[in-house]
């Protein structure tokens, strides 16, 4: 559209432009219009998702240990002993699909800043990733290789360990890979309270510190709020370039600055750049500000006000500093040789005024930019679903052993060691349960006897068939991961990855996933302390949306070193027990997709009461020190879980399933169903009776499947069609070699 100062192509709708003109009682300047365009993009304003996100209960109001909930840069919880944890998860899907290395790297950069600006030190990263299948697919291999390298190079350099993650391969992610990034920060409760992301006081100095402002990444957020087309390659300049060394310096300089007590507000510059940061600082703080735009240090000469205000150049932070502390803070920035500039001061005008020399280029009420409109989107259940759900499982075409060997080698089940070997997961000397030895990453909190456990994930195949139950199932699984390591789930954040919200079917998936998560969290008393929504993950060329991916991150706390539980089986002669029933739930299973290339069937359902009872039961056994190893049952079914538990200590198992199949499921359904919320535990025979009495008391189904043996094989009796004999060494070899064979060529 034509405005004062030139012509601008905007994504704003006509009613939105009219509202802006009416509110300002004039035409906006080109810079102002650009700021509205960015701030009211789906990515920044959550205009489609906000009505649904209201379904989550108010975490700050309902949970006394929640210090900051949704709406902040990161959720913050009080974990006792004076410490606070901040964490957040975010998507960087669109940039990574175009430029995987820098897209993923700057995703890490952004999430680190979000956590840092809560005033705490970032201590862990986790990365849930989704790609097209790797086999015979050089494009997916290229994306996978460089996304992992981007995360590794950036995360390793900043000295923040990557302690966990998840990888799913599915052809729906071929055109739109999903790169979600999560970060956890640790500090004292006081650190967090000192530096909110607000400018509450007039007369404070506003300092910009870190990288210079360049022309890269202009309008990155509006790019993220569109679908990818074959023209998207031309958007490559909208992907920012990361600099992990500068980020490391920013972390150290910021933490040293906060410790002085002179920093009164702190905000990272991410999507929407300086416009977004200033409007949130002053708008939410109830103040105004006067900014001298030419004080902002730029990477190249000749940048106009529009470019400077909207640049999304990486590695920049805005500080609100008490007047008496200005010199001290500048001295710290000089020590770290970080570029910085005092760009203005806050005032009580409630107006954001930005000057380009003498010329006033932006003159907006500071809350105007954050008062974005809401759009009520239409929801419609996809018609194809009924047909998909009624798909039947074919009769097994090969013997069960062959199927199991195929499953363990499948891309979604096999070892992800190729990924985590490239991540420094030990730096910080906190990593107690390391990648590959537990369902979650466990870090000690030095100075206490507490440990944090965190895991991320979802099951997009289940969500595709039933987003309400699938999103709940994702929660059951990710909570199950931290519980298996001995942690109580304390809080959740989520990253909702969906297609185009303007398409009713895509929006239906989003709305029902949110409903599922909200209902489950209310029932199980897990506060939702933050989230991020990534829409438009849709490939316009092939007219395909991704499978819905409401990715969940759980942070849990283990109260004492003796309460940490790990995955590997420990002692020959111990019992192998299963907690929870196996239902006829093969819909969206790996068995269906690996063996028959079908996506349908009945997906798993979640019964919150049963889940709660199982969790309470497990913690009772933990209290009695009766569990020696624990692993939740996930993709591929429970035999896969048992095999994974055998690998590390080269043990085997003698199993008899005669006793477990109460509902007479066909053998393949019993073995490969992905019913959620089951656990495999190792216990001692002497405790068996007590465990069964407790199981009855807690109304939990617990069955003994067999015992651990000193031979690397799994023998299964009690099936209708055949006995099974599996070679653990062969399984381990298949498990380990799939990804290296595809990638290291």
């Amino acid at each position, binding site marked *: 559209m034509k405005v004062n100062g030139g012509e601008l192509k905007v994504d704003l709708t006509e009613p939105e432009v009219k509202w802006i003109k009416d509110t300002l009682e004039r035409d906006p300047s080109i810079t102002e219009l650009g700021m509205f365009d960015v701030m009211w993009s789906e990515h920044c304003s959550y205009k489609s998702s906000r009505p649904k996100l209201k379904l989550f209960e108010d975490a700050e109001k309902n949970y006394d240990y929640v210090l900051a909930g949704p709406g902040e840069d990161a959720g913050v919880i009080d974990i006792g002993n004076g410490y606070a944890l901040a964490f957040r998860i975010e998507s960087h899907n669109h940039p990574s699909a175009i430029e995987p290395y820098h897209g993923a790297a700057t995703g890490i950069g952004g999430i680190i800043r979000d956590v840092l600006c809560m005033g705490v030190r970032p201590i862990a990263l986790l990365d849930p990733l989704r790609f097209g299948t790797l086999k015979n697919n050089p494009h997916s291999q290229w994306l996978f290789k460089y996304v992992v390298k981007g995360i590794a190079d950036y995360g*390793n350099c900043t*000295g923040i360990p990557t302690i966990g993650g998840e990888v799913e391969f599915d052809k729906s992610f071929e055109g739109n890979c999903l790169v979600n990034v999560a970060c956890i920060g640790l500090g004292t409760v006081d650190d967090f309270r000192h530096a909110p992301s607000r400018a509450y006081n007039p007369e404070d100095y506003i300092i910009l510190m870190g990288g210079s402002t360049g022309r890269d990444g202009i309008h990155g957020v509006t790019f993220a709020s569109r679908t990818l087309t074959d023209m998207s390659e031309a958007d490559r300049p909208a992907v920012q370039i990361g600099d992990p060394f500068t980020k*490391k310096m920013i972390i150290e300089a910021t933490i040293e600055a906060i410790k002085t007590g002179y920093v009164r507000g702190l905000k990272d510059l991410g999507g929407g750049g300086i416009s977004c940061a200033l409007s949130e600082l002053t708008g939410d703080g109830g103040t105004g500000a006067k900014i001298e735009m030419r004080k902002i240090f730029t990477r190249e000469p000749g940048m106009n006000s529009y470019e400077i205000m909207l640049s999304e150049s990486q590695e920049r932070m805005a500080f609100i500093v008490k007047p008496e502390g200005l010199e001290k803070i500048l001295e710290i920035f000089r*020590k770290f040789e970080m570029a910085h500039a005092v760009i203005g001061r806050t005032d009580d005008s409630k107006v954001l005024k930005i000057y380009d020399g003498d010329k006033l280029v932006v003159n907006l009420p500071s809350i105007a930019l954050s008062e974005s409109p809401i759009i009520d989107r239409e929801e419609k259940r996809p018609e194809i679903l009924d047909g998909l759900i009624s798909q039947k499982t074919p009769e097994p075409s090969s013997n069960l052993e062959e199927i199991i060997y195929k499953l363990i080698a499948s891309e979604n089940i096999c070892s992800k060691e190729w990924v985590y070997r*490239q991540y420094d997961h030990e730096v910080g*000397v906190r990593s107690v349960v390391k990648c590959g030895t537990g369902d979650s990453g466990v870090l000690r909190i030095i100075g206490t006897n507490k440990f944090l456990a965190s895991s991320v994930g979802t099951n997009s195949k289940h969500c595709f068939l039933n987003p309400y139950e699938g999103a709940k199932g994702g929660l059951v699984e990710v909570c199950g991961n931290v519980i298996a390591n001995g942690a109580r789930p304390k809080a959740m954040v989520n990253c909702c990855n969906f297609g185009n919200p303007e398409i009713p079917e895509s929006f239906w998936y989003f709305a029902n996933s949110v409903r599922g998560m909200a209902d489950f969290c209310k029932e199980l008393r897990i506060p939702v302390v933050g989230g991020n929504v990534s829409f438009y993950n849709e490939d316009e060329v092939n007219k395909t949306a991704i499978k819905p991916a409401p990715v969940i991150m759980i942070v849990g706390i283990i109260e004492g070193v003796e309460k940490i539980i790990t995955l590997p089986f420990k002692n020959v002669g111990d019992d192998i027990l299963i907690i929870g029933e196996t239902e006829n739930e093969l819909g969206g299973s790996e068995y269906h997709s690996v063996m028959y290339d079908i996506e349908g069937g009945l997906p798993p359902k979640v019964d919150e009461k049963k889940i709660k009872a199982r969790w309470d039961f497990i913690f009772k056994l933990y209290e009695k020190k009766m569990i020696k190893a624990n692993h939740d049952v996930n993709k591929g079914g429970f035999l896969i879980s048992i095999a994974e538990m055998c690998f590390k200590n080269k043990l085997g198992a003698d199993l008899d399933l005669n006793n477990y199949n109460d509902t007479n499921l066909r053998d393949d359904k019993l073995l490969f169903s992905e019913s959620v919320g089951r656990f495999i535990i190792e216990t001692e025979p002497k405790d068996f009776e007590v465990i069964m009495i407790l199981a009855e008391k807690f109304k939990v189904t617990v069955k003994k499947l067999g015992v651990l043996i000193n031979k690397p094989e799994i023998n299964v009796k009690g099936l209708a069609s055949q006995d099974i004999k599996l070679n653990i060494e062969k399984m381990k070899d298949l498990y380990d070699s799939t990804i290296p064979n595809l990638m*290291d060529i």
Partner: protein
Amino acid sequence: MTIKIAVVQFPGANCDLDAMHVLNNVIGIETSLVWHNHFKEAEFDGVILPGGFSFGDYLRAGIIAAHSPALDEARIMLKDGRPILGICNGFQILTEAEFLPGALLQNDSLKFVCKWINIRVENNKTPFTHKMKNGDVLAIPVAHGEGRYFADNLKELEENEQIVFKYSDENGKYTQNANPNGSMENIAGIRNLEGNCLGLMPHPERASEAILAPKGTTHGKLFFDSMIEFIKRRS
């Protein structure tokens, strides 16, 4: 006497606080974290160059830090026999500054590698290894992208007993599998001719507490215990 150790903080170091934690809380020695251009050798009995990505490892790992004034100070310590320990990036800095012979090249896998491995003690007559025995196998993690040791005077290094550690399997055998980066002769750590400067790729500070080790070992602590006792004996 009070022993004073410095951990030099180069911009981009990221194992500096880990080394501080071990020295202060595990070994119990007063240790100072010193910004690289504030470092003055006269105040310290020994110095540690920690791991990380000094100056972002831009240009080449360790080369920019090798030109920091901190290395001029350290050179004085090198000459008068005070112990200097370079871990990972610290090792890379020490080779770039020519305190130690050889160079560290990109891993043969072309990928960063983070894992627990084993190293075998080849020379226990150094300030950092005298509490170990030759042939001991230590469990310790590595985390690096450029750790493939290369030297063009290997024979000389062997004759002068400058090879202090080699990657080995659990039983002390030098196998290709045990070598995480393709280094020459499985070399993991090297000392200078005089013996008071050691550089190694593995991270002793990550292997000094049982809770962090897969098998509950504390082999990394031996490095710091040896270094402290050496300083005590020396004074």
